[in-house]
């Protein structure tokens, strides 16, 4: 039975067309996944359904819900639909909750808005719903404020807020994007439980094909404000025709993009050849804010007695979720921070006591690419300047030679030498990461530390960068220390993996072994959180 029919929906914002002729249906109890790259119009579709478009937004077409065209309703009637009949879970759990209101009150507010209940009844109902969403009042009191919760807990609050009114349709707009993989898996489990218990229809909006593939009954792919492909999830991959959809699927599953295989490691014995870069039992702690000026300072151990080494030509993946200490470890190994204990050795030499020359050689030999492509390039400098910045490490260099090196680096990463004269804002996220890579390569290093270097890119861009990395490794015999939370990516690029959790390395070994036979429970949990494409690809 069709609950919702969207027909030829057109949305303009500030006179610019955002959605063009969008149409789909949703039946009771069904999950429809809408997938698309950022800017494809997915979120605007959700807002249009709720009639919550920005002030200068305009919607045309028909949105027929339960026999009524929502676009023809007046505002008061629409207030009765929102929350009560159609609920939304928004993307950012950070900002979607009112920071000044307790979570219990925020859940209760919606209940009181639509049902004639007392304050007390609403509060107990809210507590109940929060419990149902996995926030046991005994552990997470409804009197807490949003900032006191973790990202996953906040998302549970947002879900409880929506579920509390038992709407007929839940719209979930990127509900897990900002979360770690294990948290994401648990939130998706919660959504499944709710679907099973309450039986609403779910409109799941995501850029992550993995999420949609495991959740949805049907999939719609959006691109540039249109729906380009729809169909049942089972076997979707096989049926898809639209070229954009094919690229998307290929990238998401990393099926064939990585051309070069992981090379074998040259034979050596560690005693004779000290590793290129090694952390030896390093620890690093951070002071927590003092409770009061006279209090002893409390510390949190971000990295606790960790040892990790990278041999020349070797690719090592360091896997862990946010807060595990992996970025601190990277920063220690790059010499950007000093360890409180232990030492960082470059070719067997402690960099803490090393002279200028050694440090210089190390800087030229060990380069880095950082996570956020938007913050890792100085917006005020041209690409050429940025790429040339480390060149001074090689001593004075003539202008034309410098330009030649920059052009070479640009070509290496698949950009044109002409790009040297552009500012970072002229490039897409993926291109920026290429520039960052070019900057890392310009000194012809032996090792590149990649700190979540692809995690903020969309799947297509991600796949292309991984491809590039594989090729560069093959061409130059580069070693990588690849820091990531994404097992898929680790698997694709690394020969050896180390899994980090709570400041320690809990498991380390050859990629194939660790990922097929994980020993540590945390590694197993990580592995279990991976999306399952089997039905989708079937």
């Amino acid at each position: 039975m069709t609950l919702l029919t969207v027909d030829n929906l057109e949305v303009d914002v500030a006179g610019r067309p955002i959605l063009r002729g969008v149409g789909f249906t949703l039946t009771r109890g069904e999950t429809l996944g809408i997938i698309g790259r950022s800017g494809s119009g997915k979120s605007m579709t959700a807002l249009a359904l709720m009639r919550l478009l920005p002030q200068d937004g305009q919607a045309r077409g028909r949105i027929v819900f339960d026999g009524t065209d929502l676009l023809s309703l007046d505002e008061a009637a629409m207030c009765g639909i929102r929350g009560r009949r159609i609920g939304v879970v928004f993307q950012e759990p950070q900002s979607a909750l009112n920071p000044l209101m307790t979570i219990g009150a925020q859940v209760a507010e919606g209940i009181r808005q639509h049902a004639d209940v007392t304050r007390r009844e609403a509060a107990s109902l809210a507590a109940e719903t929060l419990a149902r969403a996995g926030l046991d009042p005994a552990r997470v009191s409804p009197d807490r404020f949003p900032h006191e919760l973790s990202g996953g807990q906040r998302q549970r609050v947002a879900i409880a807020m929506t579920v509390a009114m038992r709407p007929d349709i839940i719209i979930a707009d990127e509900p897990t994007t900002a979360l770690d993989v294990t948290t994401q898996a648990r939130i998706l489990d919660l959504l499944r439980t709710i679907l099973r218990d309450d039986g609403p229809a779910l409109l799941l909006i995501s850029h992550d094909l993995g999420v949609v593939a495991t959740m949805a009954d049907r999939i719609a792919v959006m691109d540039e404000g249109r729906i380009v492909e729809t169909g049942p999830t089972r076997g979707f991959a096989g049926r898809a025709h639209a070229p954009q959809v094919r690229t998307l699927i290929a990238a998401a599953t990393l099926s064939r993009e990585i051309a070069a295989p992981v090379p074998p490691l040259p034979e050596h014995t560690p005693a004779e050849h000290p590793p290129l870069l090694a952390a030896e039992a390093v620890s690093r702690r951070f002071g927590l804010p003092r409770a009061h000026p006279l209090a002893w300072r409390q510390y949190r151990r971000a990295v606790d007695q960790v040892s990790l080494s990278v041999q020349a030509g070797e690719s090592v993946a360091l896997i862990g979720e946010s807060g595990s200490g992996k970025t601190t470890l990277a920063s220690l190994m790059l010499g950007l921070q000093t360890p409180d204990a232990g030492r960082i050795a470059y070719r067997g030499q402690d960099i803490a006591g090393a002279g200028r020359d050694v440090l210089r050689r190390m800087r030229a030999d060990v380069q880095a690419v950082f996570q956020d492509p938007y913050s890792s390039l100085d917006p005020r400098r041209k690409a050429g300047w940025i790429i040339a910045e480390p060149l001074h490490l090689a001593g004075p260099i003539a202008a034309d030679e410098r330009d030649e090196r920059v052009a070479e680096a640009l070509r290496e990463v698949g950009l044109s030498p002409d790009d040297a004269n552009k500012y970072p804002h002229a490039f897409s996220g993926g291109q920026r990461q290429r520039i960052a890579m070019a900057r890392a390569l310009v000194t012809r290093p032996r090792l590149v530390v990649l700190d979540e270097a692809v995690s903020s890119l969309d799947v297509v861009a991600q796949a292309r960068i991984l491809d590039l990395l594989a090729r560069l490794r093959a061409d130059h015999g580069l070693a990588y220390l690849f820091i990531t939370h994404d097992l898929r990516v680790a698997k694709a690029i690394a020969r050896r993996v180390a899994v980090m959790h709570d400041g320690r390395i809990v498991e380390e070994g050859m990629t194939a072994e660790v990922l097929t036979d994980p020993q540590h429970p945390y590694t197993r949990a990580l592995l279990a959180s991976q999306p399952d494409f089997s039905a989708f690809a079937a």
Partner: protein
Amino acid sequence: MNRDFLNARLLAGAIIVGGVCLMALISLVWTPYDPLKLDIANRFAPPGPRHWLGTDQLGRDVLSLLMRGAVGPVGVSISAVTIGLVVGATAGMLAASSGGVASYATLRTSDFLFAFPALLIAILLRETLGPGMLNAMVAIGIFYIPIFIRVSYGASLPVWRSGYVAAARVAGRGSLWIATVHVLPNIAGVLTVHTSVQLSLGVLAEASLSYIGLGVQPPQPSWGRMLLEAQTLLPISPLLAIAPGLAIMVTVMGFNLLGAGLRQALDPRGAFIPESEAVR
């Protein structure tokens, strides 16, 4: 809020500020009459073809006084903001880079300075150094230091923590290089906007100081002091009080508009400058 309105703010601000600055500069070499020339027989002349804005209680040409009177507010404001900007922005930027004790000390000093009302500094300075433009500049400049420390600290903290600064360190660059080559250009926009807004405040502050006799000294005219002198003449010749008052208002508005326009142009999403800071 549409773009045209905002662009209009920038344009209007630029025109007013440019006009006032130009007027102040021109007045140093040329004014319709010598602004110091007395003509007591011809005092309180109404506006007319000879004196467009009339004459004051000593028969001086009001238009000429008004032109030369811009030198004080604009000059003091610019130099005071420069003092605040150079000292405050440097201190704030370095405090953000280091963290730890130096940063704590800088921020505490800034809070401490902020607790001293500028007016009191000006009064005490007047008594020790004697009145005049210099003392107004220093007093207002001291007042600006904590403001710019806060601004540049807040703006440069994310820059120091950004990926490109980390990358520059990996590229073997030292703190001085990073501060001048990366941080400064990237907080320049924020500082520009604040500078413009603070300049407007500086004009008001100079006018207030001159009004209570702490700014530009006679015989050199200054809008604030013209107001002081015109105050007793308000019932006799209201124009004498209205003209400098309007001049102050328009100039302050010019700098404010410029600041708002610049903010729109340089930081359209309000990422770096909370409006609460920028409107002052």
